[in-house]
């Protein structure tokens, strides 16, 4: 059974249908990268899976159990953690407090605050600093750490490289690759196609709220994804449905 399955999910922002009847599955230990242009519905999809946005239709199953109606805060305890776009730390609280507040509500497991500091050594020096005063890279590390200490079964990462200096992106991705090789299950939204293809097991490309291309990262070429990304051949060539 797949760890996460999304079945015919519809998500709306008022009149706008941001996610149109999307279905896909994520297996245990796999990394699925969602790519797509701005406004394709990636963030909305991730927020719906995390429970921050109520879907208008469809189902979300975590390890076979229907969590569609479960509020966001209880999904954390069941093993879904989202690193939101823009990091969204609690700026007036220290790095330590940001981690502690998440640790209090997560699942028991191997990820402790000490282990986060091992994985992101740059946080050690800033442990007692207000999260609002950190650099972008440090904030992103804290945000990922904050999700990890809840010991998620599936980690949702939304645009972790957005707004970061190239060197900070490199560091964040080094840590992610360690996570991935350690067997973590990750659903990743990434604008940088090269990176997405490199770290992911599978790639799904979204366009206007639908998945227009999905396949193993190794089997897809940059060109195929780029075409799907911009919708260049829509209508002439049948895309592979999920």
């Amino acid at each position, binding site marked *: 059974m797949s760890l996460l399955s999304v079945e015919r999910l519809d998500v709306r922002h008022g009149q706008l249908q941001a996610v149109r009847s999307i279905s896909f599955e994520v297996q245990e230990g796999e990394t699925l990268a969602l790519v797509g242009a701005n406004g394709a519905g990636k963030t909305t999809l991730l927020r719906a899976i995390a429970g921050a946005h109520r879907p208008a239709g469809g189902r979300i199953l975590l390890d076979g159990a229907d969590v569609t109606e479960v*509020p966001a*805060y209880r999904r*954390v305890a069941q093993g879904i953690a989202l690193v939101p776009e823009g990091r*969204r730390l609690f700026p007036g609280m220290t790095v330590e407090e940001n981690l502690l507040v998440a640790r209090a*509500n997560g699942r028991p497991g191997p990820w402790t605050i000490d282990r986060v500091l091992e994985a992101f050594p740059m946080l050690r020096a800033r442990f007692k600093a207000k999260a*609002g005063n950190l650099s972008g890279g440090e904030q992103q590390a804290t945000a990922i750490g904050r*999700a990890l200490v*809840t010991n998620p079964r599936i980690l949702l990462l939304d645009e972790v490289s957005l707004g970061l200096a190239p060197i900070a992106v490199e560091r964040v991705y080094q840590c992610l690759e360690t996570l991935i090789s350690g067997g973590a299950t990750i659903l990743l939204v990434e604008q940088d196609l090269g990176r997405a293809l490199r770290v992911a097991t599978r790639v799904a490309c979204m366009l206007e709220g639908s998945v227009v291309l999905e396949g193993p990262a190794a089997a897809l070429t940059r060109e195929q994804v780029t075409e799907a990304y911009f919708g260049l051949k829509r209508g002439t060539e049948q895309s592979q449905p999920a």
Partner: protein
Amino acid sequence: MIWVNQIVQGILLGGYYALIACGLSFMFGVMRIINLAHGDLAVLAAFLVWSIVGYTGMSPFLALAIVLPVMGGLGWLMQRVMLERSLRAGMLVPLLTTFGLGIVIQNLLFAYYGADTRSLAPAIGDLAFDSWSLGSQIYISHLAGLIFLVAVLLLGGLQLLLARTPLGRAIRATAEDPDTAELVGINSRAVYAAAAAIAVMTVAVGGTFLGMRATFGPYAGPTQLIFAFEAVVIGGLGSMWGTLFGGIVLGVAQNIGAQIAPNGFLIAGHAVFLLVLGVRLASGSAIARGRIRALLGRSP
């Protein structure tokens, strides 16, 4: 010597203002709600304590222990039934709903207890008038000293709760970003309701001491609200120690004002309040950020 005395009495009076303001400050810090029913809730608690004391003859302090959970439950209910809904419509709507709640409380109290003013002072015996003397000219009332001590303990306790406990961290996280708080596993509705319950329980403590040190009637709430509000604003909204400081500044200003001119008590208090607000307004950053919150001095 008379000036020293006025300052000492002002500091003690400030402790009372801080005690009354504590719940107002806590509620704004967490929920961004300026609770205009605050003073009326304090008076309601005072009436409840007065009733229990009247029926059973027990000490008002014991009666307060009974009233505390009742007021806590009321705070929880108020959040769930009223404030939660009005908060969804923006920051201004809770002002209206709590204003309305204040009027309802005043008139229910009037309908049930009538227009008589009451006091808990007869029920606390010597505590109502005993004092310590410092030198020949300065006397410190036992009750005022007790109130100051309770204010320090309560505000310090709340500060400690916010800074050191899991519940406190959850409250602060929810205050900063309720959406993201949900994403790290915090039930923000429950946290809000718990914070409202705590806030209204502190109001009950303030109301009881109001009843012990002075008299109160069904319509005494708004006056309490004004002093509490001034103390909170002077000290910076949402900061517990700031509220204690604000209360003391207000109390000292009022007493010095009264020493200068017989009718200077209220004027000096309001003047200091306006001065602090004016300085914050003029300090530019508040205007640049364009936020009422910044005007009221809450650090981001």
